[in-house]
């Protein structure tokens, strides 16, 4: 379980998040929604040790993550899929996956199994496995980025707007895949999304972040009933 | 004692003036246009050496003196004829000075153009490599091509300041250096406020945005480089005229690294900061050099190397703790626009 309490964080003098508290459970998708510039990415960065934490705590299964450098947090079983620049463009698809797997301390057998799992989830990547990653299409690239996050079988997967800028057919497909991941893999998924409709369809729990503060917490159906919030900040309802 | 102080101050001000020209030039190139000119030595040495090469030749033309000796390879015998004529003829001396400075400026600008060819289109890092590499070239040319300034022996130049009397010669030279440095400084400050200067800064801030607004990257960089190199060339010319002789030994440390140190110290982009940084640095540096003999016996090595280490350390500290300098750059907003901003704010 990921538990964030009273988190205040930002970058140097730029204070972005104010008293953010959030809980995300295993085998659930927790979605963080909100307008541009609300601090959604900063929240992920804070969890991953990429932002400055002024006060509050971040705990993953009762272990404090604050003050750890990113590579240590990564070794604790956290994967962060960036929105952009999220693959190694000059390596082949399989090299991308194997490289990351080797650094998570997996043994040979685990790597092969995990690789098979990923190719089952994204068959297109298996087809393209000898292709240089930089030459993939936008949707395929995003699948590879998510796979890089999945290969080490994380306890916590942070997804930063995985569908941003993708063609419609890829958006639907990716959303479905994320739902499939939730069912087949035992992990916490924290999803930051701008595509509110899609996110509400698959999320188990929703947080709305506005100007660095959490203004709503509940299930997707509760959010849809709160018309004021849904309309004003998310453009739905 | 009094004479010593006067000597110290004259020397201090001459160095200040030369460095102010260089640093103002560097500030136009870096602070305005964002060019990482690590090859300042190129146009500076160019200005200094062309002055060494041409001053005597032009003096012969101007005075019409009959000089048998070749002014480059036998400068002493040539100067025996030329210097007395110049000393007794202020008008010719001043004409010579002006001609030489114009040559220094145009040669500097020409060298700026040469540096530009490969430079303007490149990314910052490649640009820095090219300019740094080119900076080392001038000395090789001067050493390899004997007729330029007599190879590694160097050359003496006619004295264009001695007409005021040998006692006041250095005062006059220093005064002229300061005057020219001041004029260049004012010009740079003025340039910063013109649309041209602001366009340069816009490019420095964000190349892509500026280019998309129709500002030509190459054109503005080229202009900044040519103006800067012309300044640098003048500084080189004055250095040779002030010293009375020049050898191909101008160092990257003195004439590229130290100017960078000074503009970092003062504040890149801000002319006043640059002038302040230059003054502080030259004052401390000259005080140390003036009192060098006190340390000479104590240190087991040549004190010159101590300069490299201490100044290297200071630069490292500036880079880490205060890269914006003593007086950081402030955005300049022209008056008519400033009024509009005030109006629009009060309406909110």
């Amino acid at each position: 379980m990921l538990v964030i309490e009273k988190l205040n964080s930002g970058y140097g003098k730029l204070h972005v998040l104010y008293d953010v508290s959030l809980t995300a459970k295993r085998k659930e998708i927790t979605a963080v929604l909100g307008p541009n510039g609300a601090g959604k990415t900063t929240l992920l960065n804070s969890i991953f040790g990429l932002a400055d934490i002024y006060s509050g705590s971040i705990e993953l299964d009762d272990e404090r993550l604050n003050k750890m450098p990113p590579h240590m947090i990564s070794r604790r079983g956290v994967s962060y899929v960036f929105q952009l620049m999220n693959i190694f463009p000059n390596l082949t698809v399989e090299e991308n996956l194997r490289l990351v797997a080797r650094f998570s301390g997996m043994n040979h057998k685990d790597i092969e199994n995990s690789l098979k799992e990923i190719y089952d989830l994204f068959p297109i990547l298996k087809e393209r496995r000898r292709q240089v990653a930089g030459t993939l299409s936008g949707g395929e690239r995003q699948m590879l980025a998510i796979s890089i996050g999945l290969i080490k079988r994380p306890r916590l997967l942070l997804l930063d707007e995985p569908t941003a800028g993708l063609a419609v057919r890829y958006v639907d497909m990716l959303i479905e895949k994320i739902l499939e991941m939730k069912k087949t893999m035992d992990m916490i998924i924290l999803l930051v999304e701008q595509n509110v409709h899609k996110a509400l369809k698959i999320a188990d729990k929703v947080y709305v972040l506005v100007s660095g503060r959490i203004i709503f917490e509940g299930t997707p159906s509760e959010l849809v009933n709160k018309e004021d919030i849904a309309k004003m900040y998310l453009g739905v309802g | 004692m009094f004479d010593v102080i006067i000597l110290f101050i004259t020397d201090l001000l001459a160095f200040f003036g030369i460095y102010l020209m260089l640093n103002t030039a560097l500030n136009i190139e870096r602070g305005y246009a964002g060019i990482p000119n690590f090859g300042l030595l190129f146009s500076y040495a160019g200005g200094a050496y062309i002055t060494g090469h041409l001053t005597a030749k032009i003096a012969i033309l101007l005075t019409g003196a009959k000089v048998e000796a070749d002014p480059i390879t036998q400068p002493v015998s040539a100067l025996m004829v030329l210097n007395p004529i110049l000393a007794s003829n202020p008008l010719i001396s001043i004409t010579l000075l002006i001609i030489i400075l114009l040559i220094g400026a145009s040669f500097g600008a020409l060298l700026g153009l040469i540096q530009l060819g490969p430079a303007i289109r490149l990314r910052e890092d490649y640009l820095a490599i090219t300019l740094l590499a080119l900076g080392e070239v001038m000395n090789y040319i001067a050493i390899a091509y004997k007729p330029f300034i007599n190879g590694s022996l160097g050359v003496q130049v006619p004295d264009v300041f001695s007409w005021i009397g040998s006692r006041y010669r250095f005062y006059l030279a220093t005064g002229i250096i300061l005057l020219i440095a001041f004029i260049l400084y004012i010009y740079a400050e003025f340039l910063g406020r013109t649309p041209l200067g602001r366009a340069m800064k816009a490019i420095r801030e964000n190349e892509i945005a500026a280019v998309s607004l129709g500002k030509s990257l190459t054109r503005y960089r080229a202009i900044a480089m040519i103006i800067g190199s012309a300044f640098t060339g003048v500084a080189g010319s004055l250095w040779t005229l002030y010293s009375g002789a020049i050898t191909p030994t101008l160092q990257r440390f003195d004439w590229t690294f130290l100017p960078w140190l000074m503009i970092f110290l003062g504040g890149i982009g801000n002319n006043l900061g640059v002038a302040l940084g230059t003054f502080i640095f030259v004052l401390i540096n000259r005080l140390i050099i003036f009192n060098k003999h006190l340390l000479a016996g104590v240190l087991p090595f040549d004190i010159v190397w101590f300069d490299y280490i201490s100044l290297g350390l200071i630069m490292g500290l500036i880079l880490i703790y205060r890269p914006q300098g003593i007086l950081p750059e402030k955005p300049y907003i022209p008056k008519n626009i400033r009024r509009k901003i005030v109006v629009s704010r009060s309406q909110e």
Partner: protein
Amino acid sequence: MIETLISGITYSSLLSLMALGITLLYRTTKVPNFAHASFVVFGIYTSYTLALLGYNPYLGTLLGFIVSGIIALILFYALLEPLRRRKSSIFILMMATLTYDILMFGIINIYADYLQTTFKIPARNVYLAPQDFTLIGLKGVTIVSTSLLIVLLMLLYILLNRTIIGAALRAVMENPSLAQANGINVSLMLALSWFLAGGLAGVAGALLPMYMMTDPSTGMLLIAPMFCASILGGLEQIYGAPLGGFILGLATTVLVSWLSGVIGYWIMTYSLMVPYITLIVTLIFIPRGVVSIILKR
């Protein structure tokens, strides 16, 4: 002519070792290292000191690797890493390497002064070729520099492509933030690349006095050829460096010597200009280096 060719190959090998480090650092830290010449000069004085103490100067290749590697590590940890943490621009990082070069120039000169007073020798003219050995008509420096280049290139290849540390290094070159996000200690990998690059420069420096007359300011002479070789090969590909090293090295030696026979001996004086001209021509016509042309096919 054969003699010039052999001398050219020696020079090219040394140049390749230096350029290799520049390219490696450019790939990992994204900064042109203007202090690289200092690393070379520390190598020169390592083998010179060994020779003064009565040891075989070739031991300097090993010791020089370590000495210059450490000099490079100091630059990384004292200046570049604090600046990187502050998210300083590339320009500030470049300025930092330039500053370190000045600092090291002061230190090496003090060391030369120290050697001069201690051993009563002219420590500013370091030339060890007279002490070199010959084998089957070849000079020792030729044999050692070419074979060391080949061995080190192979080791580098194995490191990068066959080991997990090498994989991490490549990941850092490709995408540092993603590498960090996946458990790679980027700072440590950068430090490793600085140690390796410094070491390679140290090896080249240790061999240099066997090839030519050197002194503390030899570094200034080397800046242009080193960067030229590195850019000529292509800064985007590590193995471009030896390619650039050999093209430039042979051009400055063999080509100039041939030209001096055709045009006149005076051209030799200007052989120092070859790297500058090549550098500028490369930047205008093939800014991504010879490798980019080869890979394009």
